């Protein structure tokens, strides 16, 4: 409907974007190029009604908190937050504040949740200054809604670069035909990975063709992509783990080789079951259904990455470095040249 993760009913996305200052890097001052994106897994209270979750770590040079708990229990019990590397502790702590506001017995008669916070290295701005506050995180949660999702240099994607171009948040979705279950798969990514020469779109070596375009601003050694998949197909954690691996295949279609310094960490959840302490019944799709869901996951993942690139305009970072958005006119003529358009 919106070609977004929010096409999975009940999944909401919110964000806060922090952009201020320009010029030379001054730690604690700026320039500020960062933010937070939050994915609310369903419209209810996810700490009370948890969802099944799966993970896949393609390359581990990253952080996703909550991983150990969620892997152990197969459940997701908090929203998912995407931000810059240095902000993880602050966002984690703020997430806890939000969860306590929503569930006043946390730490008293209820267990203490482990928030899911995943990072990429947004080195376009003053990372060390950690310009995200608890209030920013709470504000991001307040903006969460269904419907169209802002992409590119917004929220947690504000300071991200991918394939030598400005990038950030991208999303996409696929809906299976009714005879295949009518399920929806939605993917949202925070793209900060890859070198220019690797970029391929629909098989076209776009990166090679654009090697001469502007000054390449690579991500440095630390390149990462966090991918989040949601589906309304009811699935067990083991099935969601399998789905997560397919996100890597979608990523690979865009040319990524998942470099050593990359934190390529994927998480997927299903809204098909609400899991409480006393849940006994669990609905899951038959494995004969999953291949089409994998296809949907691969396609959504691929398109979400490309949307992150095509949505992000040129932005100036610290020390007046320009991070070019991918030139859409050049992209169109390239696709024509290779007879894709």
């Amino acid at each position: 409907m919106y070609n977004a993760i929010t096409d999975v009913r009940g999944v909401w996305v919110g964000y806060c974007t922090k952009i201020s200052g320009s010029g030379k890097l001054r730690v604690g001052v700026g320039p500020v190029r960062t933010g937070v994106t939050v994915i609310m897994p369903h419209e209810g209270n996810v700490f009370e009604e948890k969802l099944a979750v799966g993970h896949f770590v393609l390359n581990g040079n990253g952080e996703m908190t909550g991983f150990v708990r969620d892997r152990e229990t197969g459940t997701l019990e908090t929203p998912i937050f995407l931000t810059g590397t240095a902000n993880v502790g602050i966002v984690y702590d703020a997430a806890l504040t939000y969860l306590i506001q929503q569930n006043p017995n946390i730490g008293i008669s209820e267990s203490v949740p482990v928030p899911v916070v995943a990072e990429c290295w947004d080195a376009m701005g003053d990372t060390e200054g950690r310009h995200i506050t608890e209030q920013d995180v709470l504000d991001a949660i307040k903006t969460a809604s269904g419907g169209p999702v802002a992409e590119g240099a917004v929220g947690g994607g504000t300071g991200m670069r991918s394939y030598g171009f400005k990038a950030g948040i991208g999303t996409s979705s696929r809906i299976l035909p009714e005879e295949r279950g009518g399920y929806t798969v939605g993917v949202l990514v925070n793209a900060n990975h890859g070198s220019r020469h690797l970029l391929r779109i629909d098989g076209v070596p776009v990166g090679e063709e654009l090697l001469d375009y502007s000054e390449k601003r690579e991500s440095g050694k630390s390149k990462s992509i966090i991918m989040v998949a949601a589906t309304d197909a009811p699935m067990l954690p083991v099935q969601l783990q399998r789905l997560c691996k397919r996100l890597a295949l979608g990523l690979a279609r865009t040319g990524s080789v998942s470099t050593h310094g990359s934190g390529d960490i994927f998480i997927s959840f299903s809204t098909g079951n609400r899991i409480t302490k006393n849940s006994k019944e669990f609905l899951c799709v038959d494995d004969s259904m999953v291949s089409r869901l994998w296809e949907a996951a691969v396609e959504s993942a691929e398109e979400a990455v490309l949307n992150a690139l095509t949505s992000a305009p040129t932005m100036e970072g610290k020390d007046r470095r320009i991070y070019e958005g991918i030139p859409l006119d050049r992209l169109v003529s390239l696709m024509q040249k290779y007879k894709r358009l």
Partner: protein
Amino acid sequence: MMMPPMEETRMDAREAGLILGRLPTGPLNAITDVKDVRVGHVTLSRGDVQTGVTVVLPHEEEAEKALFYYGCHVLNGHGEATGIQVLEDFGMMSAPVFLTNVMAVGRVYNGGITFGYGRDKGLPTDGGWPPIVMSIDDRYLNDLRARAVTEQHALEAVGKAMGGVVDSGSVGAGTGAVAFGFKGGIGTSSKRIDLDASTTHVGMITLANHGQREELVIDGVPVGKKWKDSPFADHKYRGAVGVVATDAPMSPRQLNQLAQRAVAGWQRTGGLLDSITTAMVVAFSTGIRLESTNEVREHRLEFVPESRISAFYRAAAEAAEESVINALFRATTVTGRDGRVAQAVPIDTLMKVIKTHK
């Protein structure tokens, strides 16, 4: 509630005459017997706030960019261990290991980030990142919701970290811990292994916040079942986290095994089987120090050969077992939130029970 005794004599299990396992200990019988390992505590103990931070560092202060091999074992992951993706996927990092309460993870992590920037401005490109933070739920004695731990406490713990004698018992992250119905906390132990011409150690530090009274087993004696006459703290949010370190050169795979054996050692003393009981151990070796640079193409590594590795695995289990008992023997009675008390285990009575049984 009983009032805590005015004065409590605390000592390690060995000083009380309890010799666990068969391997000799290191000179301090502490994780700091492992070369270069440093431990720091910040203790917050005032009324309803009974908590803190403990940090274990794998390196000396000047080791800015050194990387070490790590491993881990999760018996029950119902809890948090940050940094786990790097740890599991690379098996190589340089992270400080922080232990704290479950509600302080974000703030301590943020302290770890500040510490990381201090080591390396390119934060995620080198040794300063990611911090490992593991936690326990100390709500029996501690007002978790006061959220008393700050980023600053994490940095203070790092600042205080040193080798030598390790404070244990009701200190650092163990301040509000309860184990087997008694006061729990930080415990440590080490074992010495002579590897050819060199002396090496396996050291363990445990944050013991696990076990129900009737589960407690010491040196094979089911002392928990025999105990009748003391008040017990009925702590429902149990868990143990710990670090096993060695200065013997080990690969990430061997270190995973070492961590697994440490958990096996924990289990000799009972507990850790409930669904929400956290139980995980991080392992690292200071025996190999790498610097990942573009100038180096290959590393020639020397690991403990498989023919010699069993002794180390045994050492991990024995040090882990002894560290739990040392946590109990070292912990002092603490009165915490709402006047709740966790009594220090009465060592004399306990030793009598053990001797009677033997």
